[in-house]
């Protein structure tokens, strides 16, 4: 299957007073039609920045794109003019944001904001746009959509607002929906419902989802493929099963070990990743993760050579670790089960 989105060697960053922040450093990946592609990492790992770069949503300056290609259905988004890019945004690639409390405009009704998409991109008139808004609200499971369409955002709860955001983003049937931490600001009980709506709508409008999150629980339930990012670089890329059960990067492993598990009968303590994410202005030498890595072999090669992303397992499972293959042993990959 042909990918709809191809990113090759994307490198970009921001000029700041303290120096150049290398936020995205040589990232390459594909998104295929109909899949949920998840980008995982800590704050500052470059996941949101990557997504915003695809749509040209950074202000330049301070943002600076150093190189790479972003091919959307064969067209390079990085080379596109602002006015062409505007036609892609919302219509072909839509985006929803983390905080539904602040991502809806407080002075317009929900219906007007949802309908605005169709009015801009499909030239619908006011009445048609309203009808579309009601349909979309209905699709995302807002009861009494015909009445609620005239509500203002402050009259909606957090979960309803995020549903409305999804309705808005999906109203032009985009080929790709970028969801940046879509459930982080929601109650746990509401999270599951919103994710369900997201998946359901994805199938109905036949689009793909790029899910950006730091919540591995969400990833496990939703994603088809996963990309783990650390300090602006890819640490690991593979299917959700490969990432969870045949982990090939110490950082992914660390993320997993710091996750509480409901089925953990042995009450093994959670294992946090020691230390802080590195400065993106002066990254550590060699592998950026080596100062926090439990398996690092110092000084060589971990502190001297930067590991490149390479095929480590199967036909598409890639990792950027010098010792990816050695993580195979079950004691390392599943420390808790090993101890049982």
């Amino acid at each position, binding site marked *: 299957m042909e990918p709809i989105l191809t990113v090759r060697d994307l490198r970009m960053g921001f000029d700041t007073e303290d120096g150049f922040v290398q936020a995205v450093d040589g990232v390459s990946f594909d998104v295929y039609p109909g899949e949920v592609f998840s980008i995982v990492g800590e704050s500052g790992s470059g996941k949101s920045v990557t997504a915003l770069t695809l749509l040209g949503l950074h202000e330049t300056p301070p943002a600076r794109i150093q190189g790479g290609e972003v091919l959307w259905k064969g067209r390079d988004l990085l080379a596109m003019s602002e006015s062409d890019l505007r*036609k892609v945004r919302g219509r072909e690639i839509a985006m929803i944001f983390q905080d539904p409390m602040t991502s809806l405009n407080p002075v317009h009704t929900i219906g007007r904001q949802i309908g605005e998409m169709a009015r801009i991109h499909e030239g619908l008139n006011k009445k048609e746009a309203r009808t579309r808004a009601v349909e979309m609200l209905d699709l995302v499971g807002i009861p009494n959509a015909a009445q609620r369409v005239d509500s203002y955002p402050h009259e909606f709860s957090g979960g309803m607002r995020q549903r409305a955001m999804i309705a*808005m983003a999906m109203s032009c049937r985009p080929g790709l929906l970028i969801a940046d931490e879509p459930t982080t600001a929601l109650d746990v009980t509401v999270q599951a419902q919103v994710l369900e709506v997201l998946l359901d709508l994805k199938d109905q409008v036949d689009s793909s989802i790029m899910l950006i999150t730091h919540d591995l629980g969400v990833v496990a339930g939703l994603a088809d493929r996963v990309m783990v990012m650390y300090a602006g670089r890819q640490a690991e890329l593979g299917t959700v099963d490969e990432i969870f059960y045949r982990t090939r990067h110490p950082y992914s492993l660390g993320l997993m070990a710091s996750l509480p598990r409901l089925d953990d009968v042995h009450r093994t303590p959670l294992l946090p990743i020691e230390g802080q994410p590195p400065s993106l202005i002066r990254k550590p030498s060699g592998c950026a993760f080596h100062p926090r890595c439990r398996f690092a072999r110092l000084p060589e090669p971990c502190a001297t050579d930067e590991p490149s992303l390479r095929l480590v397992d199967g036909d598409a499972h890639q990792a950027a670790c010098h010792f990816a293959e050695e993580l195979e042993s079950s004691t390392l990959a599943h420390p808790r089960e090993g101890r049982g």
Partner: protein
Amino acid sequence: MTPSAGDGPAAQHASMSTDASDLSMATSEPTSFWADVWRRFKRNRLAMVGLGLIVLIVLLAVFAEVITKYNPGTIDPIHKRESPSLKHWFGTDQLGRDMFSRVIFGARVSLRVGIFATAIATVIGVVLGSLAGYYGGWIDGLIMRITDIFLAFPYILAALAIIAVIGTGERTVILVLGLLGWLAIARVLRSTILQIKETEYIDAARALGCSDFRIITRHILPNAIQPVIVYATLFTGSAVLSEAALSFLGVGIQDPTPAWGLMVARGKNFLSVSPHLLFFPGAAIFLMVMAFVFVGDGLRDALDPRLK
């Protein structure tokens, strides 16, 4: 809202009913933003007094011909500077013209000047303030330097200078006040937009394909316009005052047009013998400016969500 010990049953009842209405607002009927603003505005007594005054002045100005018995321009040298009487409610001026007619017709001039000067100032201020706030960079720098230059000019002096060049008259006064009045509006709007520009709903609008023009007009301005509305209302009052000042100085409205500032200027020589020549137009200026200030303050409170 908890009724304190001293509250009678009536007060308790009142507080309960407001609680109930707040609740219904939160759960069922969608209420528009402006309905909310009006609800809060109504509670402000001074603002309602101001609004009532403005409505009254507008009605008087519109129906001036119906209300007054005398033509404001008719000279009657035999009955000059008569004190207020049943025949001439506000007395007559130094040329025997009916003061009541002149004050009522003067309201038209003041309202025209206030409204049109404010309209010009608001349009210029909103356009320049939006451009400066939204685009930033050199556009912002250029516009803000222009406002700095304008601010460094003494207001009345600048008005005098411009009028000296292009001549006097009502249109000139409107133009001058409008052209000098947009500075504060542009600055207020720019700083508000700087905050709103960073909000997530603007990011969302951009991410969903809105153009800059649409983002500014549909998403930013409705959120940023509140301080501008307040300022424009207050500016209307100050434009009325400035027109009076310019007319008083002899560079504003010219005789025989009945303008309040001009009437004060002409009457000042008779302060000791015929104080009514100053009192009525002076009181009219005072009432109109005060009305706009009250409404402006009321709007500011009603529009400020933090005071909800």
